[in-house]
């Protein structure tokens, strides 16, 4: 384990950024935390987490897949994939680190999505343990420890210092890089910090939330439950929950005519939208009830069924604070799972 003084962080960020792009949460002009590329003077946000999850780094909101040049009846397909460059994401919370594993199981299973894989390969994740989890946090429900975040490197922040520990070869390389600006140390301060966080976690309002009622093989048990009507009644179908969600991974593929060729791009989509399943001959999910049900059945039943029981939720709490009608996965779990 290594450590550095918090006062030395700016110099350390500059040192890292000199060899590869460094992204970290900073406070935007509206006071909300966003991931930004570090530049001189950029301060690490004190916010618990960013409004949007860091899934953008590996699965961006939009990205070009290919270009077409057409002439008469002919088509030429142009591969627009660039060789990705190494980058570091600093300040990722334990919940969001877990979300990468959930996305990996989608994009890195055969056939591998080369766009995602390339960025994943080049990205180093530096996580930071939470010191002040909030009342919307429920990562513990999914077996995530906010005080022991995974990632290539784990960090712990105390009042005056930041502690660093490598977990992977990529993480070792990163610690090598920052070695001149950090010093070897013991883990006593980290343990004390972890205990403090654990004590806060225990007192959170959602500390006792359990996911045991859900999981693979329970489609029949939950699909036709009458509660879906009531739960979905006020859903606006705005899709905010899916966009802020670190594990939502549905996407659309669309063509854009630039006037000088066609770009085929991928963009985030949402199962909350009626267009999502609309076909020439009809729609398999006609009302918002079906779309709403799909989102939660997928996270709590379908995904675990295909992924060794792993739920497609990390308890980050973004949907709790962002849904305009205050509906969220916690309410769904409580209602259907029996409080």
């Amino acid at each position: 384990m290594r450590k550095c003084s918090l006062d030395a962080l700016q110099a350390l960020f500059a040192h890292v950024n000199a060899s590869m792009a460094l992204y970290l949460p900073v406070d935007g002009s509206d006071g909300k935390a966003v991931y930004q590329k570090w530049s001189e003077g950029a301060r690490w946000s004190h916010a618990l987490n960013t409004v949007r999850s860091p899934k953008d780094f590996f699965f961006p909101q939009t990205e070009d897949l290919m270009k077409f040049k057409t002439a008469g009846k002919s088509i030429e397909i142009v591969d627009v994939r660039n060789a990705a460059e190494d980058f570091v994401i600093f300040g990722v919370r334990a919940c969001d680190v877990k979300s990468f594993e959930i996305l990996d199981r989608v994009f890195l299973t055969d056939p591998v999505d080369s766009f995602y894989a390339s960025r994943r390969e080049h990205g180093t994740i530096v996580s930071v343990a939470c010191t002040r989890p909030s009342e919307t946090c429920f990562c513990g429900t999914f077996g995530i420890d906010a005080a022991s975040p995974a990632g290539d490197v784990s960090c712990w922040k105390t009042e005056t210092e930041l502690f660093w520990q490598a977990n992977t070869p990529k993480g070792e390389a990163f610690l090598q890089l920052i070695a001149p600006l950090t010093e070897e140390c013991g883990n006593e301060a980290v343990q004390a910090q972890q205990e403090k966080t654990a004590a806060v976690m225990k007192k959170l309002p959602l500390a006792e939330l359990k996911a045991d009622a859900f999981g693979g093989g329970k489609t029949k048990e939950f699909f036709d439950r009458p509660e879906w009507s009531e739960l979905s009644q006020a859903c606006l179908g705005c899709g905010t929950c899916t966009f802020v969600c670190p594990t939502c991974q549905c996407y659309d593929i669309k063509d854009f005519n630039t006037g000088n060729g066609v770009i085929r791009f991928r963009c985030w989509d949402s199962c909350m939208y009626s267009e999502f399943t609309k076909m020439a001959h009809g729609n398999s999910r006609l009302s918002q009830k079906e779309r709403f049900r799909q989102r939660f059945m997928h996270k709590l039943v379908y995904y675990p069924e295909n992924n060794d029981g792993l739920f497609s939720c990390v308890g980050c709490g973004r949907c709790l604070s962002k849904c305009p009608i205050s509906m969220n996965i916690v309410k769904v779990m409580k209602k259907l799972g029996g409080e």
Partner: protein
Amino acid sequence: MSSCEETLIPKVGVITDVRIDTPDIKTFRVVTPDGKKAFDHRPGQCAMLSVPGVGEAMFSITSSPTNEEYMEFSIKKCGCVTEWLHQAEVGQQITIRGPYGNPFPVDDVFAGHNMLFIAGGVGLAPLRSVINYCRHYRDRYGKIDIVYGSRSKEDLLDYKEIIEEWTNDTNVNVHLTIDREQENWDGHVGFVPNYVKELGFSTDCIAVLCGPPIMIKFTLEGLRSLGFEKTQVYTTLELRMKCGVGKCGRCNVGSKYVCKDGPVFRFDELDELPDEY
């Protein structure tokens, strides 16, 4: 530029023949620009065809894998991509990627069995691949019965092939029907589900169904009343798809993705899925 394979990046295909089948269905022959088949497939699998600037859509491959020269797609005009394709001329390039999905188990489960194919309208498109595969390896299968119905005589897909080839095969029985009486038609008149019941097939066969949802529902009921088990009846599903490889989330039904776990399903397997297809 990366050199690794990317499933979302298609190949260029050329339309080398356009056959007008019915007032709203055309069959397109597609090869690569150097005149080869774009890829090998199994009966029941699908391919993504696209028109740059218009969009991409999933289609069943209607030609049999035993055709080593080209692929064919019977396409009904019903949306943006299909309307554009219907205006395309021979020589037009499109894009193609695949094959996607699970095929019909033609070499194991189907082998040695009598086969009963039941199709309605453009539902014959995905079945033609497996029918012609079974006809090609005729000695591997028992009796073959084909029940095919459409709105009118003009709406029967592959009519020439059916009349000139299928009906002349030994041990292949073709039963055609149209919805309403029509001049120059001395065949059966009536809906497919009723016709299947009238024909009263014995249960010593494997049945494969494809057609409009309402036809599938009533035909399955008809087969059940004749004593068929759900484990001996197959169908192929269609849902909106974008990626074709179970990642974009669009064709997710229960824990299955129609594009990769389907489109071929046995009816007892469908019973395990929520009714969202």
